[in-house]
């Protein structure tokens, strides 16, 4: 479970996020939705412990992520936006590197590596160097390596950007499978349909603030719009009119 309370972060003159609070429970898929530049990535990077918040609190399964980032990192699998794998290493080596960094060794590591390779349909390309991989193959290897230690929390920043249908479908399978296994999945997107189709709960973020939180149904009611896209725009507008 992720608990975020009153998170704020400023870059120079720009207040990237302010007072961001939400809870992403385990066994649920939480979608972080918002237009470009709303503060989704900043929020997720703080949760991933690669950025430091100016103020606020982040609890990862009860662990204070700001005070004990190492412990928090053992519990999360992070797929940062625009991240890539090592081109000179094979898919398997890339995954094995992260497994080793997460402290997995020997037969247990091998078993975990084989399992994520299967989960992300990487068998065919597992022993090929990543240099020539397609965008979709890249994302699948990135996702496999961040899940290799079986984290209870998955944080995915715009994972579906630029993916073909097949990879999107594989990704969706994995997200649903993880949720059913009791994981907490948090992912960001600016594509309404995919959030609506996948998420149990939606957090709409706009201009660094949380505009609305709830299920798709809750949001339709709160904004008085039947269509989720209209609801999204209404929620963003609501925030803008402040």
């Amino acid at each position, binding site marked *: 479970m992720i608990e975020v309370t009153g998170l704020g972060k400023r870059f120079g003159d720009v207040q990237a996020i302010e007072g961001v609070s939400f809870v992403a429970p385990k066994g649920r898929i939480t979608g972080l939705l918002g237009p470009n530049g709303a503060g989704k990535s900043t929020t997720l990077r703080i949760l991933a*412990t690669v950025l430091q918040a100016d103020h606020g609190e982040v609890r990862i399964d009860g662990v204070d992520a700001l005070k004990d980032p190492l412990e928090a990192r*053992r519990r999360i699998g992070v797929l*940062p936006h625009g991240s890539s*794998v*090592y*081109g000179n290493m094979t898919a398997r080596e890339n995954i094995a*590197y992260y497994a080793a960094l997460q402290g997995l060794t020997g037969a247990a590591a091998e078993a975990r590596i084989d399992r994520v390779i299967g989960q992300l349909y990487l068998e065919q390309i597992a022993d090929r160097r990543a240099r020539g991989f397609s965008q979709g193959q890249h994302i699948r290897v990135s996702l496999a390596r961040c899940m290799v230690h079986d984290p209870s929390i998955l944080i995915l920043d715009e994972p579906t950007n630029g993916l073909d249908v097949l990879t999107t479908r594989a990704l969706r399978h994995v997200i649903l499978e993880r949720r059913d296994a009791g994981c907490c999945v948090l992912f960001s997107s600016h594509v309404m349909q995919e959030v609506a189709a996948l998420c149990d709960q939606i957090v709409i973020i706009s201009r660094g603030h949380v505009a609305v939180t709830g299920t798709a149904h809750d949001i339709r009611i709160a904004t008085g719009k039947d269509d989720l896209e209209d609801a999204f725009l209404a929620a963003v507008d609501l925030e803008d009119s402040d």
Partner: protein
Amino acid sequence: MNGFLVVLQKELLEGTREWRALATTLLVAPLVGPFLFVGITAFTMHQAIDDVAAAIEIPAVGAERAPNLVAHLRQSLIDVDAEAFADQGDQTARHEALREAVRSGEVEVGIVVAEDFAEALAAGQAARVWVVADSSSNRARPETNRVRTALGAWSATVGGIRLQLRGIHPTVGAPLAVLRDDVSTPSRRAYLLLGIVGYFVLFAVLIGGSQIAVDITAGERERGSLEPLLAMPIRRETLVLAKVLATLVVMTASLAITVISFAVAVQFLPLGELGMTANFGVVEAAQMFLLVFPFAALAAALMVAAASLTRSFREAQTYTSIAMIAPTLPVVFAALRPMQDSVPLMLVPALSQHLLLSDVLRAEALDPLHIVTSVASTAAVAAMLVWLTVRRFRSEKLIL
């Protein structure tokens, strides 16, 4: 396996996968460099040997007026071409023709015997001989010096005979006897030639690891693999130390190749023919390796620090190029203004290694205090650079 070894192993694995780049950095400068240096040095040395030993021929205008002088020059292995410019007409025109030939580089050096040479000589006066040469030409210098020395020797001989004819002892005309007392040992003389070896070794170390240092810092960041790595449960200091050590491994390989390559290449230098001894055997090679190793640690820390400060691969290459020159500046300074080893100088990394290497090459005893000071100061600077890099890695600026 702990995080440090995991990262170190992965960086080295990835480094060796880029074998083309690795081979270039490890083979070009460290392996080929010493042979190239020795080849050029050997060539110039052979020339120096040849210059002293070989007979030369110089054009002379008016040589027919000074048969004894010409005979003396021939004894000094300087052949005189008396027919040169004979078709140019009178003395003045032939003199001018010789000057033009020297100016154009066609002839290195020539002499002109004055028209009144025989008369002046007979009258016991100073007979004039011009040495026509271009003092701005380095190539002509050895030959010009030989001609001047031979002329001077003849002048002294004839002067001595004149004094004796007048019943005066020749030493009356030579109140000063300037004697040569060269205290240099054969190893010291060789060091003049091999002094650049130290500079080269330090440079080879820096060059050897610059590629991998950029790859694993700015390169990792630019390719987008740094951010997910920072979300791994590994301390930033562990990460930095592993990256510095990976760089150090490559630099150590570069150092070893350079030293071995020099040790082999130096055996081809004709030092013995010039009365020099190359103090460069297995023991000296091992000493060089051990003395420079602390500098490799500093260089690794420096390269990683410089590359971490940057946002892109290209920028990192610029930074590391500058960082590569900085440590070698004291060495250049030392080469221009030779200095004696002392404890304060041992506090300066690079310079201290250079001076210690000089001692090894000159076959002089190494002062243990100097070695300890050099190692300690170099290690201290390296530690400071690692600390700066750790700070950089802890700062979120690294990924913004």
